[in-house]
C-alpha cells in the first residue's frame, strides 16, 4: 500500500506537462465545437458602466480608447463591440482612439465587424469618428486634456475635427460624457486614471484583461465607475445589454459564447490542481506509514 501510494505520488509529482496541455486542448476544443454556453448576469462592478451610458444626456459623446494589440483582442474586442452597439443603440456618438501602435487596425476591425454590419444606417463623422493612434502614451493623454486638436488636428480620414459633428461641443477630454479605456497593459487604463480621470474628474470606466484586473480593483469605485475584466466582464456587459435592449442581436454575443470553453478550461485547471494536491497527500501518507 505504501509503495503504491509512493509510486502514484511520484507519478503525479513528475507528470509531464504535455499531458496537461493535451487534456486542456481536447476539453476546450470539445466545448468550442459543442457550442455550450451559460448565460451570465452583470455584477455590481460591470453594471455601473451600462447604467452610465443608459443615463447619459442624449447625444453625449463617448470616448473609447482601444489600448490593446491583437494578442489581447479575444478578451477586449467583445467589450469594444458591446460598447459600440450600446452607444449606437442609445444615440451617443463614439470617438475612437488608441495609445497602441496597432490601435488603428483594432478600430478598423470594430468598424467593419459591428458598425458596417449591424448599423449600416450609421453615418461616419456624425455617429462615430476615429482619431486613430498617436505616439506618446501618458503624454498624449496629458496633451488632450485641454484640447483634442493639440495632437489630433484631423481624424484618420483627414477631416478637421471642427468639421466633425460627432465632436460638436467637445474641446478637451472633460467634455466627453464617458471615457472608456480597454486596456491590455501600458500605456492604458492606469494612465487614463492618473492623467485624465484624477485630474479633470471626467467619468471614466475600464475594461482589462483577466491578468490586469487585480491592479485596477483598488481604483474602483472612486476613480473608475466600473470595470469589465476579461471575457467574463464582456459577457456580463452583453447580458446587461441583452436584457435592456431586446433588439441587441442574440447571435452577436462573442463573449457569452466564449464562456463555455472558458468554463471548461477553468474546470480542467481546478481538476489538475486538486490532482497535484492528491499527490502531495499520498506522499505524506506514504511517509507516515513507512517504517
Amino acid at each position, binding site marked *: 500500500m505504501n509503495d503504491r501510494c509512493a509510486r502514484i505520488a511520484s507519478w503525479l509529482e513528475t507528470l509531464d506537462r504535455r499531458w496537461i496541455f493535451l487534456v486542456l486542448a481536447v476539453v476546450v476544443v470539445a466545448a468550442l465545437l459543442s457550442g455550450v454556453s451559460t448565460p451570465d448576469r452583470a455584477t455590481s462592478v460591470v453594471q455601473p458602466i451600462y447604467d452610465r451610458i443608459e443615463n447619459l444626456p442624449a447625444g453625449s459623446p463617448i470616448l473609447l480608447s482601444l489600448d490593446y494589440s491583437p*494578442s489581447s483582442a479575444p478578451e477586449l474586442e467583445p467589450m469594444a463591440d458591446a460598447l459600440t452597439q450600446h452607444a449606437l443603440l442609445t444615440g451617443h456618438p463614439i470617438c475612437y482612439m488608441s495609445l497602441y501602435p496597432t490601435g488603428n487596425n483594432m478600430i478598423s476591425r470594430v468598424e467593419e465587424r459591428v458598425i458596417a454590419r449591424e448599423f449600416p444606417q450609421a453615418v461616419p463623422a456624425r455617429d462615430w469618428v476615429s482619431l486613430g493612434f498617436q505616439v506618446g502614451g501618458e503624454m498624449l493623454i496629458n496633451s488632450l486634456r485641454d484640447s483634442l486638436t493639440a495632437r489630433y488636428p484631423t481624424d484618420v480620414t483627414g477631416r478637421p475635427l471642427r468639421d466633425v459633428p460627432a465632436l460638436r461641443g467637445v474641446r478637451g477630454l472633460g467634455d466627453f460624457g464617458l471615457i472608456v479605456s480597454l486596456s*491590455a*497593459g*501600458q500605456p492604458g487604463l492606469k494612465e487614463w486614471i492618473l492623467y485624465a480621470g*484624477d*485630474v*479633470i*474628474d471626467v467619468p471614466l470606466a475600464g475594461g482589462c484583461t483577466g*491578468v*490586469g484586473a*487585480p*491592479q485596477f480593483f483598488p481604483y474602483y469605485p*472612486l*476613480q473608475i465607475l466600473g470595470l469589465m475584466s476579461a471575457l467574463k466582464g464582456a459577457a456580463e456587459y452583453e447580458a446587461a445589454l441583452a436584457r435592456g435592449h431586446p433588439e441587441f442581436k442574440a447571435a452577436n454575443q462573442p463573449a457569452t459564447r466564449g464562456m463555455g470553453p472558458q468554463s471548461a478550461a477553468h474546470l480542467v485547471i481546478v481538476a489538475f490542481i486538486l490532482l497535484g494536491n492528491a499527490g502531495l497527500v499520498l506522499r505524506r501518507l506514504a511517509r507516515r506509514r513507512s517504517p
Partner: protein
Amino acid sequence: MNGWLAPGTWNVALVGATVCALIAVSVVRARRGAHVPVRSFPPLLALDRAVADAVAQGRPVYFVAGSQDLDNMQTVAALAVLRPLARKVAEAGGRLFVPTNRSLVMDNAREICRRAYDDAGRGDLWRDDWVAYISDDHLGFVARVDGLIARERPGLCVLMGFFASESLLLAEGGHQVGAVQIAGTASAVQLPFLVASCDHVLLGEELFAAGASLEGDAARLGSLRGQDLCKLAAAACLVAGSLVATLADVTGAQPWLFLRDAFLNVFRAG
C-alpha cells in the same frame, strides 16, 4: 503664488515635496557616512551560487531587462542589477547573453557588460553580439528568446524589469530546460506568474533596492532608508486617518470633523 499654482494641485505638491525631502535628506546623511543596514534578499544571495553552477556546467547565463524602454524606471533598475551580474559572470569566466527589445536598452546594456568584463580583467572574453536587439514587438521578442533558450539551454535566467504577458512565456521556457530562474519586477500584475514559475523572485520595490544591495552604493542605500521612512509615514497617516474618520462619523464632534476634512483635502486625488 496666487495665479501660479494650478488649482487642486497644492496637496500633491505638498505630499510630493515631503517625500522627496525625506529621500534627499536620507541620501545626504548616507553619503556623509551614516550607516544604513539593509536586510538580505534571498534571490540575490542565490545569485552567486547560480552563476557559479551555470558556468561550471558550461551553460550560458541569460539576462532579460524587461520589455520596456529606458524611460521606464524598472528598466533603469534592471540595468543597475546587470552590472554586478555581468561582473560575477566575467569573474567566473562565463558567457552572458542579454537579448533586448529596445535599441537604447541594447546600447546601454552592451556598454555596461563591456565595462564589467573589462573591470573583471576578462575583456578578452567579451563579444558585442552577446547583447542583441531582437524586436520591439514583445511577443516576437519572447518567441525568439524562448527559441534561443530551448537551443542554448542556459544554466541561469535572470528576468528583471517590467514584463507584460511575456513573463510566463519566458519563465516556462527557462523552467523547461532546467535553468535556475531569478526574477524581479514591480509589475504587480506579473508577480503571480513569476512567483509560480521561478525559483526566486524580488517583489515590487525590492527590484529598486536590488542594485543598492548588490553594489552597496551610499546614495542608493540612503534612498532606501528614505523610502522606508516614507512608508512608515504613509502607514501612520493611514491609521490616523482611519481613526479620525471613524471618530468624526461616530461622535459628529466639530474637531474630529475638521481633522477628517483636513485629511481628505491633503490626500484627495487631483
